[in-house]
Each structure stands twice: as C-alpha cells, then as structure tokens.
C-alpha cells in the first residue's frame, strides 16, 4: 500500500512538472517580440509514419542558430520552439494553440504536412500569426490568398507543367506517360502535366495511378510499356521508385524516367535503386551547389553534430525559412505582424538564398515558381542540365 502511495505521489509530481511554464505577454506589446527576442515555432513529425520529414524542423533550428550567431535580426535573437506532432492533425492544432496562447509566438516557420497544416491554418490566420513556408507544394497555402501566410515550396502543378514543357520542347519527347500516386500530391502533379499538354495540343500517352500501399507494380509497368511512352514522369513516393524502375527493366521497358522534386535527393535515390537512378532527370528547387549550402552544412556540424540525416529534407528546413528571416530583417526594429507582411511583400526576385527568384506581392503569396532540371550522374551525383525555369501562368 505504501509503495503504491509513493508511486502515486511520484506520478502527481511528474504530471505537475509537465505543465509548462506560462509565458506571459502584456497586451500592449506585440505577441512574441521583445527587445531581445523573437519567438518562432514550428511543428514537424519526429515520431510516427512521417518521421523522416522531421529533418525539416531540425534544419530550421540550425538555421536560426546560425542567424543568432551572426548577430540576430535588428538586435533580436530568434527563440525557436520545435514541436513533434507525429503527423496527427489533432496534435498540430493543439501545438498551434500552445504557440499562440501559452508561448505567444510571433510567427510559425514551415511545418511538414498538408492535412496537419490545414488543421492549424484558419486558427493561425484568425490570430494574425505570420506563417512562412509550409513544407508541401499544395495549392491550399496560396490559393485563396491568406494575408499572413506565405508559401515558398513551388506548387506541384507548376512544377509538373515545367517538367512536361522541358520534355517536349528541349528533349523533343512526344509520347509522355504520367505515373502518379493516387492522392492529391500525385493528382496535383497530373493536373499540371495535363495543363501543359492541353496548351501544347498534346495528349498524355498514359495516366497510371499507384496506391500508397501497393508493393507489386508489375501491372503498372506493363501498362506503361503498352502505352509506348518515350518518357515517364514519376510523381510518387521514394519507396515506389526502385520498384517501378526495377520491374520496368525486367520487362525490357527503359524510357527516359523523369521525377518530381520530392525524389530529388539523387544520392539517396541512386542508393535505393541500386544504380538504376543513373540518367534519370528530375526537378529541383534547392540549389545544393550554392556556397550557402556548404555554409549551412558547416553550421550543422557545429550546432547539431549528432544529426544523422543531412540530405534534401534537412536543407529544406533552411530554404523554406530563408524568406522569413529576410522579411524579419526588412521589417527591422518596428516588428508587428502587419509590418512583417508589408516587409515580406517588398521581396521581389530575391536570390540570396538556396532557392530562386523569391517574389511576394500583395496579390500573390506564392513565393517561388521556379525549378531547374538535373540529371543523376554515374555515381549518383547531381548534374545540373538546365537553368532555372519559371512558371509564367496559363
């Protein structure tokens, strides 16, 4: 009995310590901004099915450490809060409420996931929380326009349209098949490819969907072969890429494979496809050869030496948030959500980052619409084969 009592006491103490300290903020001040600090939060799955994408949030942490080390922004240091939502929307919304109410953050940086972000979007907007760079290419972020939300990730539709255009105009491919994941990630890609095809007066040779849970892609490969496509665009998960490439090769079908930016980690793809990835061309919106990337990876060695994953997702944590830091710098000393929005909207064709031509206007909060094409080299290295291409609209 006494042991149990002790156990209960321990539990009570433990749960009491779990109640986080309440950060108060006076009403006349701007939420999340003090003379010395700017509070910024981010959620990202560190556990659960999507944990691999959690590297984005950790990358952002290193980026803020770097910014602070370089002197911060207008005399203020960034205080960064990272939360694990395990890719569950109910937790994401709880985190958003915690950010706004308990911690009183100024803004939210990036954040992985479309459904998770959508659970928090309206709440953040109602509370005037600036949010920059959600880490998916969904059109939900910039369409319809939200005053305090700035999208950085190029829309999947734009990217697919550019890729198709490149195939038709630069490589002279006429018969293009589209192999896509049967959800909105894949469907938005398909929509983009169809849009371009329609404008060019073409017809896609085949549109083959694949379910996330499928593991045997033989029938898919056969259908693609039957369509006689010269090039196949892949809008799928990394785990499906080795399967479809392997099974297509087994039945003697070797078209030009083309992949979306979600498959742009060429070293990783080369490894998991056991070399089949060589020669694949893919879209890319993150300039990994830029000197900035080198600087960021050095910062990682300094601030997060234990980090195991330093690939594209980790650097994505930098690229999605770079415009936010630029906006904070431009807003300067007098920082409120509204001055921040105004400052963000002065960013035009800005290139001092890993991305390209960041532009925000009061009418359009989709910051990046550009992509470039790379080819996977014999050792899995990335060979840039095109310049930046920008989506100009219909």
């Amino acid at each position, binding site marked *: 009995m006494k042991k149990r009592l002790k156990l209960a006491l321990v539990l009570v103490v433990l749960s009491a310590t*779990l109640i986080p300290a309440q950060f108060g903020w006076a009403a006349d001040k701007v939420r999340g901004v003090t003379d010395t600090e700017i509070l910024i939060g981010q959620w990202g799955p560190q556990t659960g099915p999507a944990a691999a994408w959690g590297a984005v949030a950790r990358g952002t942490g290193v980026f803020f450490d770097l910014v602070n080390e370089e002197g911060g922004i207008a005399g203020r240091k960034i205080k960064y809060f990272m939360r694990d939502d*395990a890719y569950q929307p109910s*937790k994401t919304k709880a985190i958003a409420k915690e950010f706004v109410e308990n911690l009183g953050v100024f803004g939210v940086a990036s954040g992985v996931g479309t459904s998770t972000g959508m659970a928090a979007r309206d709440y953040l907007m109602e509370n005037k929380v600036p949010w920059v760079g959600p880490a998916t290419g969904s059109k939900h972020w910039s369409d319809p326009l939200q005053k305090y939300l700035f999208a950085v990730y190029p829309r999947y539709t734009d990217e697919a349209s550019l890729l198709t255009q490149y195939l038709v105009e630069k490589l002279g491919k006429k018969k293009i098949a589209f192999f896509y994941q049967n959800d909105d990630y894949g469907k938005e890609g398909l929509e983009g490819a169809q849009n371009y095809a329609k404008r060019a007066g073409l017809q896609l040779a085949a549109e083959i969907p694949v379910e996330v849970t499928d593991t045997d892609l033989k029938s898919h490969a056969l259908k693609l072969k039957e369509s006689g496509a010269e090039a196949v665009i892949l809008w799928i998960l990394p785990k499906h890429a080795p399967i479809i490439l392997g099974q297509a090769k087994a039945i003697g079908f070797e078209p030009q494979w083309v992949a979306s930016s979600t498959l742009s980690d060429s070293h990783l793809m080369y490894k998991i496809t056991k070399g089949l990835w060589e020669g694949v061309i893919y879209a890319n919106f993150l300039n990994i050869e830029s000197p900035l990337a080198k600087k960021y990876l050095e910062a990682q060695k300094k601030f997060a030496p234990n980090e195991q994953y330093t690939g594209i997702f980790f650097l994505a944590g930098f690229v999605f948030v770079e415009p936010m830091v630029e906006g904070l710098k431009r807003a300067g000393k007098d920082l409120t959500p509204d001055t921040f929005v105004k400052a963000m909207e002065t960013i035009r064709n800005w290139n001092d980052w890993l991305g390209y031509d960041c532009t925000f206007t009061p009418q359009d909060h989709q910051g990046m619409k550009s992509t470039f094409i790379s080819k996977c080299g014999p050792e899995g290295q990335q060979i840039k084969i095109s310049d930046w291409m920008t989506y100009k609209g219909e």
Partner: protein
Amino acid sequence: MTSRKNNSVIPHALQVDQKNDLFILFFRRREAILPIANLLTWVGKDSETYRCLTMDMKRDYYEDIQLCKTRTALVLTIALFCCLMIIPFLLGDYNIYIVNLIAIHAIVAIGLNILVGYTGQISLGHAGFFAIGAYTSVLLMVKGGVPFPVALLAAGFVSAGFGFLLGLPSLRLEGPYLAIATLGFGMAVTQIISHWDFAGGHMGLAAPKMSIGPFVADTGLEQYAIIMSVAAIMTIAAINLMKTRVGRALVAIRDSEIAAEAMGVNVLKYKTLAFAISAFYTGVGGALMAFALAHISAGSFNLILSITFLAMIIVGGLGSIMGSILGAALLTYLQIKLQVIQEAPIVGPILLDISKRFFTAEGLPNIQSIIIGGIMIGIVIFEPLGMRGIYLRFKRYWRMWPF
C-alpha cells in the same frame, strides 16, 4: 431496509482496521479520531454510510440500478458537474482544447469499452467508425445544409449502421480473426474516403462551426459547452445502459457465450447490438472531433488511432465506464504534454541532456512513445484492472484510513 444508528459506525470500523500502521503513527488514543470520523460520515447520515464503509453490498435490484448509490457519491457527482461548469472559465483556450479532446476521446473510449470490456469482442477498426462519424456530420452540414444537432445524431446512427454490419461477421469470428476483420474494415474506410471525390478526397474537408439554433460555437469555450454536454449525456446513458437487461446480456456473452445462450440471451441480437452501440458512440465522437479540428482528412483516421483508442481502455480499465474516461484523459494528456517535456522544470533539461549525449537528435520526441509504452506495460503487469483498479484500491484504502 434496515437502518443502524450512525454512532455504531466507529467501533465496528475500528475493530476492522486496528492494525493499521498509520493509525498507530498518528492517533494513539481512540478518542482522537472521533471528530475525523464524524467529518467523514457527515455526508451520509444513514445506513448507506455504514455499508459503504464495510463492503459494496446490494440488497435488492432497485438499489443496484441507482445511478448514485450513496449520498457521498451523489454529492461528489454534483461537485464534479460543478467543477466541469467552472473549469473552462479558469483555463485558457489551449487547455480548453485539450479538455475538449479528452472529452471526445472519452466518448470513443466508452463506446469501445462497451464492445471490448463489456461484451468481450475486439476491434482494431474504430478509427473507421470515427471517420464515418466525422465525414457524415460534415458532409450532411456542408452538402445537405442539415442543422448541427441532426447531423450529430445522424453521424451516430450512420456509424451504428456500419457497426451493425461489422457485427454480423463477429458472430462467426473470434479473437485474432475478429481483430483482423475489424482491422481490415478500418483501413478500407480510410481508403474509400480518400478516393471519394465527393468527400474531398485526400484534401479533406473544412468543417463548419457547430451551432444549435442561434447559438454558434466560435470559441473553444463555446465548443466546450457543446462537447462536454454531449459527453456527460452519453456517459450517463452508458452507465445506465450497462445496468439494464442489455448491459447484463453483454456481460453474460463476455463471460461465457454458451452459458449466455443457454440462459436465453439472444447472442446474435446482443453481439450485433454491442457493435452498433459502440459504433454509435465512436461516430458521435468522430463528429465532434471534426468540429473541434475544423478540418478533416482521411489520412488522420489511421491504424495508429485505432490502437490508441484500444490503449486508452486498457490503461483505463476494461469493463468500466469510469476507466474509459480515466484512460482517455491520461493518454490524451500525455500525448499532448509529452511533446513539451523538454520545457518541464528539472525533468526537461535532464532528459534533453541524456538524449543529446546518448541518442540522436531525434531522440527526445521518442520519449513520448517510451513513456506511454512503459505505462501500458506497467499497467498490464501490475494492475490488470487499469487505472480503475488503482482507483478501487485507493478507495478501499482511504475509506478506512484513519481507523
């Protein structure tokens, strides 16, 4: 009903528990306890107190079906309701949201417990019912223009309909086979919804605001009013249901299907009914969740959610309404609060240090899974009755404490 005089309580109780160490420690003389004993018994000034102090004995059927068996229980229940009415005004929006989540999960846990704890059937597919409830209510309101209370009930009944259908195979399937069948159901529902363009596909749907007549639930506080009322009504309904013929039939099926059938319990009827009731609760919970989140998408109703529900009732206590609520509260609270463990005083920095030194950068968030897993293992090994078992032991212990 025989009644004893109040003052006869003390000597009896003393005889029962005189060996108690604590008593010897604090009260060396018998007289010293009298005022405390009186304090403890002032709420119940009749024979019920005596009975409550000795054992839970029921002497007739009507006594058994009473909602509050003693005056103490009644007073405590009223106090609980008062607390539930007051706390939202003391909590901030963030904490209200957590309480709302707890209430929703409690509804689901009660529903699942009716199936698993009372009837002895397993289900790994309750996320499916949860999704059906959420989508039914939102689709009815958005596409059908149905008012919220109707949509909420409809969510429950549509879900119950599917529960009935899933209950049919349960007549032939048992144990792991039933687990797989329900698992398949849960996954199929998510797949179908995510490919159904009318329901928003993978994008999901934005949920409108809850409203009853002119009252629109804009803030967390107003949502709390609706969610907590529904939760309270459904809890009382479940407590009562388990005391009726239906509840006893379900328990009989759990204890022995053949014996139950021999006693005249229609196994077919009550098994499918258990599935339907359970699905009804889960469907209503799902509908409320849709409005609390304001946006639903198929991906969030996954297998992990089904297992979390199951974990809630195992941690809370199988075959107990109160256990369901306790389990839902504990797991929901831990899931939300363990995300911020690094900011807890004392414990947080230590854990952060340990994780930085020995684990990878991703190490700390996994503490959440480790703690929840640890609690579940601990409960299954040391307290098979779950949190309700702990409560019962405490109750028995404190009831006699000073004596």
